[in-house]
């Protein structure tokens, strides 16, 4: 026996055809004699149709541009997007030597992978590493861009960690990095077509 309470409770199962044959027949019998449930059933069915036919709202035309600028801010404000092995910037000489090598390697990497013209080789001396202002383009936005962003983030991360360090060490250092990312103005890509940064002067005094 199906009563109004039971009918209402399982109305969706009925409308979506997930009742057993027996149940279904019992529900149909109830519908045949109960005008109230018949009306409710029709209205809920109508509601379902109406809901699925509602206009689909879309993002505004500026959505992609806003997302790009949000991501750009994200990159600049240090949410480190890519993960790097944490290097402990201790003040011991070996670590600095390692750092120096790293920056030289970085320079070489930039040279090889990105810099097409107007190159300046990174100058490294015992206590000074200079990476001069460099702009590198990313011809294909995928592979090489990832690399460039990694480098940008890497340098930015390092510079922050250097800045945070206590100045009263036996060395002084300054590393200025300005990361700039340019975005395609007219397409939907959320990522820069071009990244440049300026990294200057790490000086180490012993």
């Amino acid at each position, binding site marked *: 026996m199906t009563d109004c309470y039971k009918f209402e409770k399982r109305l*969706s199962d009925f409308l979506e055809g997930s009742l057993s044959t027996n149940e279904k027949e019992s529900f149909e019998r109830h519908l045949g004699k109960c005008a109230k449930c018949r009306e*409710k059933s029709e*209205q809920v069915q109508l509601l379902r149709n*109406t809901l699925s036919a*509602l206009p689909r*709202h*879309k993002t505004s035309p500026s*959505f992609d541009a806003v997302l790009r600028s949000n991501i750009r801010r994200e990159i600049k404000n240090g949410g480190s997007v890519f993960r790097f092995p944490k290097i402990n910037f201790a003040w011991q000489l070996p670590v600095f030597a390692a750092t120096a090598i790293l920056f030289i390697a970085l320079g070489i990497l930039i040279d090889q992978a990105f810099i097409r013209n107007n190159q300046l080789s990174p100058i490294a001396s015992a206590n000074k590493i200079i990476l001069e202002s460099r702009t590198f383009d990313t011809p294909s936005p995928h592979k090489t861009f990832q690399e460039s962003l*990694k480098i940008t983030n890497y340098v930015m991360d390092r510079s922050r960690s250097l800045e945070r360090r206590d100045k009263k060490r036996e060395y002084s250092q300054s590393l200025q990095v300005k990361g700039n990312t340019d975005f395609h103005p007219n397409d939907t890509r959320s*990522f820069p077509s071009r990244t440049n940064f300026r990294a200057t002067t790490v000086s180490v005094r012993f």
Partner: protein
Amino acid sequence: MTKQPIKNKPPTDEDLISRFQNDDLAAFDLIVHRYKNQLLNFAYRFLGNTEEAEDVVQETFLRLYRKKHAYRQIAKFSTWIYTITGNLAKTELRKRKRRKLISISDMGFEEKEYEIEDLRADTARDADEFLKEKIIQKAIDELPIGFKQVIVLRDIQELSYEEVGKILKIPLGTVKSRVNRARLKLQAKLKDIVDKNMIRQ
């Protein structure tokens, strides 16, 4: 069957997120492209406000960007991203409620919703559709959150019961009965609004 011509098949969501987790940024763009409109519609129907919905979807993609490694292959990607949008939208709704408690002055807004000069549509049919949509959205807005969630996910976004259950982290049986009750409630509300509206006109 043995050789699968995968080349022409579009990548699955799970392919894309896995590529993005391996720093393929083009995959991120594809995900954004694939999901932005459906998430916007979801957030809009849930919040009833375009600007808030847009913010919520922006934030969703930022979180994806920031926390891509939080996604694990055990879940469907769509479930995961819908959960993020859903949670953000819920938070937004709560914030708004708090704001509303403070300002009693916008209590008169209900009258305005149905005024004809509000309609941008130029043909009678469009106006009719527009009005209908407004009324339905109004009724959805008035539903309790739990009902609103299931009705939007199931009947508007047309996700399966299973997926709705996973997004909301509630058992399948509960989803089904909640959807049913939500439909009945919404239907009753609509009837109410339409009746009131008739009287006003």
